[in-house]
């Protein structure tokens, strides 16, 4: 298995007025292609910050981050947009769907920024929505769906551009146990199909679905960096 993510001595500080608040204090991680990794830690441990940096939504203060052997630490914002669009799929705790668009249009969103024609977009979006079991709800607005269904739409949106990594931030946090289990089994399936899944959670039961768990405490890795 090849190395997909390589992080060396990654640090992140936030400035709050004149005070510097450290969030990550020098982190080294290697994640291989096809892994299902859980990132665990108490709130304030820095796991969300790490997730944002992994997802190229934020940049580190220092250290090196390579994604698919490309150093992305110092890329320009437009390049990072392209990486988010093509290589990363996000799934959030609060789903983050656009409420005024129907679910097909929501799933098409990454494809629109990817420059696909509207016909291709529709075709791909319908296909992934069928895969997550929502092929008969294409014209529904997110508000007309249950939480579990919404999260499936979010997963469809995350995988529609066929990214190398799926980043999930507490994907079951807003769901009841049954729906949460459904969602987790979708992630397992995706992982079996070859997708790399990185899931941030504070729930040990959820984390058990992962092949490997990385614990973060106070901006440092506690254990679990070796598979």
């Amino acid at each position: 298995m090849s190395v997909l993510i390589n992080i060396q001595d990654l640090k992140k500080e936030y400035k709050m007025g004149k005070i510097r608040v450290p969030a990550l204090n020098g982190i080294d991680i290697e994640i291989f292609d096809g892994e299902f990794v859980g990132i665990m830690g108490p709130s304030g441990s820095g796991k969300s910050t790490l997730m944002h940096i992994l997802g190229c939504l934020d940049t580190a203060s220092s250290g090196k981050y390579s994604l698919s052997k490309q150093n992305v630490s110092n890329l320009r914002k437009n390049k990072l947009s392209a990486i988010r669009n093509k290589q990363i799929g996000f799934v959030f705790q609060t789903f983050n769907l656009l409420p005024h668009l129907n679910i097909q249009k929501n799933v098409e969103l990454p494809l629109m920024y990817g420059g696909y024609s509207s016909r291709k977009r529709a075709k791909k979006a319908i296909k992934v929505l069928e895969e997550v079991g929502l092929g008969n709800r294409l014209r529904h607005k997110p508000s007309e769906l249950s939480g579990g269904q919404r999260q499936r739409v979010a997963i469809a949106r995350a995988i529609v551009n066929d990214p190398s990594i799926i980043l999930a931030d507490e994907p079951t946090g807003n769901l009841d146990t049954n729906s949460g289990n459904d969602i987790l089994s979708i992630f397992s399936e995706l992982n079996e199909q070859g997708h790399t899944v990185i899931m941030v959670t504070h729930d040990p039961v959820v984390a058990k679905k992962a092949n490997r768990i990385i614990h973060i405490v106070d901006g440092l890795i506690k254990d679990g960096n070796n598979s």
Partner: protein
Amino acid sequence: MAITLNESLKIGFSDFWSRKIRSFVTVIGIILGTMSIIVVLSLMNGIKKKTLQWMMERGGLSKITVRRNWQYDNPTNAREYFTWKEIELIRSLIPDAKYFNPQLRHWIRFSYKDKDYRSSIWGVVPDFKYVEEWDAESGRFLSDFDIDQSNDVIVIGTKIQEELFGSENPLNKLITAHGRRLKVIGVMKHRYMKNDGAVGRDNALSYLNRRTFVPLSTMIKKGTGEDRITRLSIKAHDAKSAPALKEKLENIILNLRHGKPVFQIESAEEEAKEMAKNQKIFQTIFFIVSIVSLLVGGIVIANIMLASIQERTREIGIRITVGARRFDIFFQFLVQTILVTSIGGLFGIIFGLSILDIVSGYLGIDLIAGINVIVIALIVSAGVGFFSGIIPAIIASKLNPVEALRYE
């Protein structure tokens, strides 16, 4: 990879539509501003066209007229008329004048059978019909032969025809003027121009229909018996050469009167320019007022867009997360603002055009909305969108995605 104009327009339209009431309230200012631009520009067009029409009805822009200067009180008693000899001298000094019509006017009572009518009688030469661009409709106008022979002939306007003859054919009838019998050889073409703004006087040119014309020689020799020509109207080859000809004529006439400005020389071209200059002042004021009202509309829109961007912070965060570049966000919001103001502009144009008749009826002036008026209104409303949308769009494009996603 880039979001296309098409996509931005689609997003803009669906946003506009999904928030109908707010969209409508947003664009009210633009609708009113564009309406006022349409009305103001149409009004300007109408006034401009009317002025030109007025000048054309009175002999066109190449016409130059000479008459007594009433602003000069003539302390040295310089002669206030031309003799026939002077007229001939002036004519020989301005060979570049295309047409040349010395004239003399009196007020007189005309009678035919038991009817009479008081009106003006003009001694003119055949060039009259070219200078004034006005000819006889039935019968004929005065000829060189009539001048040579000082014939007792007269051409009458339609109003005097109606007053003296009613439905009777006036041609070759004799009317009495000042004890002299004059044969009617022609009736002038009826003159009409819609009189805007004045109540009760529908025809702005009705005074012309009351006039009568006789040979200048007949008037001098048989009428008053005095060689006094009080007016002169000439025509340059075109409007462009009129001001130069006017200046030349002015110098000649000043020399004839030893520098005393007894006569006033006017060029229609210069008069038209002067009128246009005066109109321009009002036009500019009107236009600025309309633009200011549009700017106010634009500021309202900028404000609403800023609020809307704050409300949509999370949406912007989501779009950035799935791969939107900063430019995509900027473009989406800018296009949306321009779309909103353009839709407002479009409605403003439609409403503006539909109230033109009402405004026209109220002001008594024809309002003319050409395609140029519509294009200007559209460009201005879209421009307001551009300027009021650019700052909100920049703010939207600079949002930090991590913070935007956290926004509640």
